[in-house]
């Protein structure tokens, strides 16, 4: 799995082109056509892909197995009943990795036990990855 990180705002096409460039430099296939499925989740031809962004940070996870990723500012307040932002991002990443929407009923009844990895790529932001390949490389995309 590769976590592509971009610090700033980026035009989608340009960002995906940078990712293809980085994949090619590793001898890997390009993403292929990136589109949205009927639930609005991104899909591409050659990998499983998950995208998350805040106002100024972008993370794209590219994996050989289903993956979900979520980033939030750490100073945001989680919904009532959710202990912290790490738990929230883990839950959201988990939903994405399973192709499911967020369910308020999960929050009401206490979040299910979730396996997610936490990454500290950007200071002040909480990032969780659910699913994805065991091996993980982080790639900071160049500023445009």
């Amino acid at each position: 799995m590769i976590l592509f990180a971009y610090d700033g705002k980026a035009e989608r096409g340009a960002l995906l082109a940078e990712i293809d460039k980085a994949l090619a430099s590793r001898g890997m296939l390009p993403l292929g056509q990136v589109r949205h499925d009927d639930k609005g989740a991104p899909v591409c031809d050659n990998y499983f892909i998950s995208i998350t962004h805040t106002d100024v940070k972008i993370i794209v996870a590219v994996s050989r197995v289903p993956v979900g990723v979520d980033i939030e500012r750490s100073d945001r307040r989680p919904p009532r009943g959710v202990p912290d932002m790490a738990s929230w991002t883990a839950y959201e990443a988990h939903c994405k990795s399973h192709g499911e929407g967020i369910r308020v009923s999960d929050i009401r009844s206490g979040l299910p036990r979730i396996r997610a990895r936490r990454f500290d790529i950007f200071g002040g932001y909480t990032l969780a990855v659910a699913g994805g390949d065991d091996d993980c490389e982080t790639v900071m995309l160049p500023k445009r």
Partner: protein
Amino acid sequence: MVLDELKKIISEKLGVDEADLTADTNLTDDIHADSLDKVEFIMQVEETYGITIDDEAAINFRTIGDVAEYIETHK
């Protein structure tokens, strides 16, 4: 009126000017509510009206008007 109350909740939660909100305001495209914003909004609506919003309905809410219509038929 439900719509006015919803506008007030959204305005307070997301810092959007109430005057800019209408029944047709799209939660994602127009006011850029993310999933965390939407969950907080739905939980606040549930508390305000003493109802439980069905998960499937919540996923399909697109506009403020969709939420108002749901409340009108379920409160």
